[in-house]
């Protein structure tokens, strides 16, 4: 592998600390449903405006609110949710995402359910207040926003990365160093490689790195995502087909195996392949030849095969969903990629790398990240690993308005998580009901809404769980 490339240093950016006593611009949007109590909200906020340092304006209805949002920058939108609070909340989140300066949302509702509060938190809503509005609750939400404004800029570090075409390997953690060593060892041969790792850990980048440093680097690198392609099309995609072989075979098609001749074929998410197709792949690997669908000629193939999966293939073999003989053919060398959580401070390096990459793409100049934004990144679970981080950084760079990536530029979900972590010590301890509701919500998220499985985990009867879900509005 060639030595890592160092990106250009970005000048240190001095960022003034924002004034926490600044007046906030708030747009109050009254509910449109009958008896929504909107008038009271506007009346109260108007009364409290001076001592809470608010500049208040009102929108009589949703369409006019959208017009006012498009017209100027707002810090906060205080929206009264109607009779379908969940739908209204989703609508507001969607609307504010596109609004000028991404204002924060305070939602007000009559007797908000625990489910609504949890959902709002997850979506990054600043607060959910119950109607009639109480001054101290509004003040607490405003303080939270003002405290959040006091962010300190941290210059982004320089990053050494290893370019792989348009991709890059970034990271200096021990876990990644082991991966680099394995890539170096395996690249020189033409051995079949199996790359295992959770979604978004960079399996395709590693496959490309093996290809470009291997003996078939002058040939093509052809990637096939086996899970993305419908089962009925995957065979013809891989092996090609003759014209008229089946309905829809409008022309003769050369498959990916042939496209990869003299190069590397990367089969991503291979565990999603049917057993019948696995048998055909096994034959291609063993015999080094294929036949197009509907064809009779045997076509020799000269490709290096790299396969990848985010599943446990040994487990799949035990369940009869993956062929053992194919597994041993593919796993001549196995590379296991670490999750982002296992990579420690690579998070900061990757953040810096992506910020620079996207800043260049979108013509921006961002040299620092705020301490609060970094805390949010460090506190997030990153189930989507590097892919999720990349996505978050691209969005962040797009919405960033100055030279610092701030907490407000991160997705609502991350801000919501931070609010949950940070706010409770200030707001006091959780009640038993709150704690129970949160735990039930998290178990339901784990079981993806399956009540039976959730009840098993919680050790209660499904009827009890259903009752509690209703009670907490989950």
């Amino acid at each position: 592998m060639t030595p890592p490339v160092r990106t250009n240093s970005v000048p240190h950016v001095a960022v003034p600390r924002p004034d926490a006593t600044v007046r906030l611009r708030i747009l109050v949007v009254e509910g449109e449903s009958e008896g929504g109590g909107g008038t009271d909200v506007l009346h109260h906020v108007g009364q409290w405006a001076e001592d809470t340092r608010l500049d208040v304006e009102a929108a009589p209805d949703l369409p006019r609110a959208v017009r006012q949002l498009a017209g100027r920058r707002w810090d906060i939108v205080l929206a009264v949710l109607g009779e379908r609070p969940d739908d209204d909340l989703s609508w507001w989140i969607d609307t504010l995402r596109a609004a000028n300066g991404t204002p924060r949302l305070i939602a007000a509702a009559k007797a908000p359910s625990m489910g609504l509060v949890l959902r709002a938190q997850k979506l990054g809503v600043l607060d959910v207040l119950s109607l009639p509005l109480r001054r101290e609750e509004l003040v607490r939400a405003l303080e939270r926003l003002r405290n959040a404004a006091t962010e300190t800029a941290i210059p982004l570090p320089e990053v050494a990365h290893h370019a792989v075409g348009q991709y890059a390997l970034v990271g200096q953690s021990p876990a990644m160093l082991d991966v680099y060593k394995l890539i170096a060892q395996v690249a020189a041969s033409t051995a079949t490689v199996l790359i295992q790792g959770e979604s978004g850990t960079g399996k395709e980048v590693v496959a490309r790195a093996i290809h470009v440093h291997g003996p078939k680097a002058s040939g093509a690198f052809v990637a096939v995502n086996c899970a993305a392609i419908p089962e009925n099309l995957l065979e013809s995609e891989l092996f090609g087909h003759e014209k008229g072989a089946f309905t829809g075979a409008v022309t003769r098609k050369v498959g990916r195996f042939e496209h990869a001749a003299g190069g590397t074929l990367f089969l991503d998410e291979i565990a999603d392949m049917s057993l019948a197709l696995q048998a055909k792949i096994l034959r291609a690997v063993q015999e080094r030849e294929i036949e197009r669908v509907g064809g009779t000629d045997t076509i020799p193939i000269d490709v290096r095969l790299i396969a990848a999966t985010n599943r446990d293939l040994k487990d799949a073999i035990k369940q009869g969903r993956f062929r053992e003989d194919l597994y041993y053919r593919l796993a001549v060398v196995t590379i296991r990629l670490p999750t982002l959580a296992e990579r420690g401070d690579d998070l900061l390096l990757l953040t810096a790398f992506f910020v620079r990459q996207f800043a260049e793409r979108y013509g921006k100049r961002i040299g620092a990240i705020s301490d609060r934004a970094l805390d949010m990144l460090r506190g997030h679970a990153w189930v989507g690993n590097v892919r999720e981080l990349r996505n978050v950084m691209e969005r962040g760079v797009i919405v960033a308005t100055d030279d610092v990536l701030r907490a407000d530029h991160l997705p609502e979900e991350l801000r919501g998580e931070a609010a949950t972590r940070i706010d409770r010590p200030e707001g006091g301890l959780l009640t038993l009901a709150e704690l129970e509701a949160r735990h039930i919500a998290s178990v339901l998220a784990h079981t993806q809404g399956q009540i039976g499985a959730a009840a098993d985990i919680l050790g209660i009867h499904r009827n009890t769980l259903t009752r509690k879900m209703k009670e907490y509005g989950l």
Partner: protein
Amino acid sequence: VSGGPPPLPPVRVERALGLMPELEALAPLRALLVSISRPDERAQWSSSGPYLTLGKRGVYPDELRRHLPQVLHRVAEHVQVLSKAYVEALEAQQRNDAAGVVAALLRGGGLEEQVGRLAQAAAWYDLALGVAEALQDRRPEVEALRAVGYLCLRRGQRADGARHFQRALALAEAEFDQAGAIAACEGLGDAVFAQGDWAGSYAWYNRGLRLAEQADDAAQIGRLERRLGVLARNQGDLAGAGEYLRRARERFESRGPADEMARVLSAQGQLDAELGRHAAAAAAYREALAWAQRAPGDPGLELSVRLHLAELDLSAGALLDAEAELRRAEQVAIAGNLPDRLAQIYTLMGTLRGAQQDETGFVFFEQAVELARAVEHSPAAEAQVYHAYGLFRHRLGAHEEARAYLERARELFDALGEAVERARVDAELRALSA
């Protein structure tokens, strides 16, 4: 959360639907299954996540079971309102009120249309028309012909639709039924507009507008002005389009129905987009969504606006935003039981992948073709997908395949008599040869 047995994976929608017989009685169950399906959270960040389509979404049998009472309640409710319409028809028959019979039968057809049962709606309307034809008062027949005409348009039978509106207009004029005549002109304009006859469409809308102005019918005037605005934009008269839409907007803003205001703003957004005013277009679409939110019960309207927004983002190269908008539109279509609109969404998703030079984007076109055939039963929709599929292949350098798909689109448009669309495809094919 740790401990406990690992949850069973969901069943893919493509497999779940494959296990359901194609019985009309199971249509509500099919709709429920699709509406509660969700993308597998484990796949969200996987490399196949960006290619997720309806077939690859997951459904939990447990969740389906939980929702069953809801669907059974909806079915019972539908049968109940249909039965009520029928009883009302009987009561009208009993008191020898034939116009009442027609009105009740048309109500039944309308209820069927609302839930997307178009063949059943046709059965109600045909009955109503049969009764109306025997009456001396022709106004019920005008109403019935209009209902049948719009149903024909929904089913892609444009020539039939035009024929019914033509007859409705002749009868309405003979009866001095001005409201009926205005509505018939509007329908005729819609029918010939869908056939690409701009001049004919203009003539009908304009005639309807003059009648509506004579009758001082503000709602009809606004509706026809919007249609004339859309037509003018299609004809390239952007200034004229702006003027019509401005007038329609003024008319609806203070007292018009929210859904009409949303449609006007949506048309305004398209006009702004064509004029290259991206920010203004986005603002118009956002406001249209706000009006659509005030007129709940028509997810199709929200979906249309979201598709326009996605097209706007796509044309501006804001691919991330376009993708997010398309995913929202997909969710609206799935939750709102509008699977027939998914073909359009996936076609745009495929086009987006083409803009990213992403070959795997072909999976969206394949899914769209399947939906156009199996769900929408619409050769016109299938032709549109093949047209876009051909352009996608062309963009990625697969010229032979591009030609084959464009020729397939031309064949389908030909069979449908869609001259305008056929001409567009012909132009693409000529460009391909050059």
